[in-house]
């Protein structure tokens, strides 16, 4: 039953751009899909108690390395994106390995990763001669407009299909993790590191695996976002604001259910856009007021998130405990 619903929904979403051509709603959908992927990438770590405030940094690494290698080295994003993902993986290992080795957990891990997003933000700002600093940066447009080589497309339909594919891939990765041994190991570690270690779980290695995977996915999303918007600035792709936003969307949607981050992305983006359209510039700031208040009340009253609390009422499957 649920499987049929899932297939129908997927096919309907896939067919959408072929029958519907309005640019603005498609743009919103593309944004929701890309950010859903970002939040999913964050949540595969977050749901095991590894709360990172450093993912804004990985997003920035992905976006800036891809854009810079395109502009300066004339390297196609087909190579630039893997390069940026490699860089993100290297940074993840550099930060993650000592953290996990030295048992830096909880508050300390969150604040240490906070330093990472702050570093990326400051580096981008400090190298303003190359990166444009806080004014933002634009990858050069390819002469012909749309081009597979430059990964730049003028029409929204193509981008919708790309974002849709990436989003599905994100869900599949999450699904694969949920079925893997890695999940059991990480759940054991989240419960009690010492006990897990005594039971033969290689704590450092397992944590590192999920961290690198999450970082690489986030960097990929950053690069994709850059290719889609053709404009990035330190505020939109790095720094603490973005990192907190990821946490917010994932928690509100539901950290422990696969579609939770997607629901979170839909809620946040639709909220921002609705406020922007109905109130114009008078709405600046209001979206974040609502975010903040909602985040606090969710953590107090509904820590499972919206989808995480609703789903168990519709399905017989037991929800995973927080």
């Amino acid at each position, binding site marked *: 039953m649920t499987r049929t619903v899932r297939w129908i929904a997927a096919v309907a979403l896939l067919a959408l751009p072929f029958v519907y051509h309005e640019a603005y709603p498609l743009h919103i959908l593309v944004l929701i899909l890309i950010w859903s992927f970002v939040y999913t990438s964050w949540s595969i770590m977050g749901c095991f108690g590894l709360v990172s405030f450093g993912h804004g940094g990985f997003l920035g690494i992905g976006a800036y390395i891809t854009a810079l290698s395109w502009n300066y080295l004339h390297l196609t994003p087909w190579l630039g994106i893997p390069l940026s993902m490699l860089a993100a993986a290297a940074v993840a290992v550099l930060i993650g390995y000592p953290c996990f080795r*030295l048992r*830096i957990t909880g*508050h300390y891990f969150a604040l*240490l990763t*906070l330093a990472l997003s702050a570093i990326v933000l400051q580096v981008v700002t400090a190298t303003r001669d190359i990166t444009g600093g806080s004014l933002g940066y634009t990858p050069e447009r390819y002469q012909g407009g749309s081009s597979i080589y430059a990964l730049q497309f003028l029409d929204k339909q193509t981008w919708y299909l790309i974002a849709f594919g990436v989003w599905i891939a994100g869900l599949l990765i999450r699904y694969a993790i949920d079925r893997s041994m890695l999940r059991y190991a990480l759940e054991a570690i989240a419960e009690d590191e010492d006990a897990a270690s005594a039971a033969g779980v290689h704590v450092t290695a397992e944590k590192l695996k999920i961290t690198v995977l999450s970082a690489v996915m986030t960097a990929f999303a950053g690069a994709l976002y850059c290719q889609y918007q053709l404009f990035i600035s330190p505020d939109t792709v790095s720094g603490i604001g973005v990192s*907190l936003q990821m*946490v917010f969307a994932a928690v509100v949607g539901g950290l422990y259910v696969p579609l939770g981050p997607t629901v979170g992305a839909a809620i946040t983006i639709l909220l921002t856009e609705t406020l922007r359209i109905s109130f114009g510039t008078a709405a600046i700031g209001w979206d974040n007021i609502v975010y*903040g208040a909602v985040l606090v009340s969710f953590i*107090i009253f509904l820590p499972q998130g919206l989808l995480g609390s609703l789903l168990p009422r519709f399905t017989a499957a037991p929800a995973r405990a927080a």
Partner: protein
Amino acid sequence: MLGIFDIYLFEALLNGVLLGGVFALLALGLNLVFGVIDVVWICYAELIMLGMYGMYFLYVAYHVPFLLAAVVCVAGVGVLGVLLHIVVIQPLLGTPPINQLLATGGVLFFLQSAATVMFGIDFRNLGIRLPVLEAVGMYISYARLLAFAAALAGMVALYQFLARSYTGAAIRAIAQDRQIMPLMGVDTRRIYVITSLIGGALAGLASCLLVLQYDVQPFVGLTFGPITFLICVLGGLGNMIGGFVAAFLFAEIISISGLYLDLEWGYVFAFAVFVVLMFARPQGLLARRS
């Protein structure tokens, strides 16, 4: 005979010490709250931002004398700290610590954008231009000197309170053992509220001093928020002496690399040193190996 180069270096060193005083004050309130309640206020810098707006409106719009405005501001931010504790932290005390971190992150969003909506994004300042002291060819900002002195005074006052008073003893006791103290007849809820009041008041004190050096805008918290957390973590969360040492270390790194490179590179270096030191001493600079 000092060369011109050395004068600049010496000036940077001295400015680093003064900046360190401000950082130490920033870290103090956060460390106290963490040490006692075991909660990190991610929105700590935003409390300071509100305090700075309070100072701005009292001084510029209502022409309240500076010292009186400062007293009102310290008390006001102290009350905000209590509100934060009662509304957000108290319901979450029994839950995983990361929830409290995230909830105060929500408060950060809320306060930042509430300030944007209420006050707009204009940069505002008090319009006080404190003189710059000149001594043996070096220029020292009077505002920083004042901040340094007030930071020291605040720390001594806090130390005296914790060391001498009955409530202070209870606060220290709770920081040492959270489970036992309720059995000894200490009302933990009351102590937590008092701690939040002091933590908030220290944020208020910091805001009175920072408003002399920085323009107020809703995102001003982001300029010194991260560095405050790093200082607390590097010093060992809850360890006030460690925080003190870390504050001066950071301030010197920023000040000296700011002399040779840009200010942003100073921050980059400080963050990098932080990451390296964290790996060398994961429990903080002054932690004893157990």
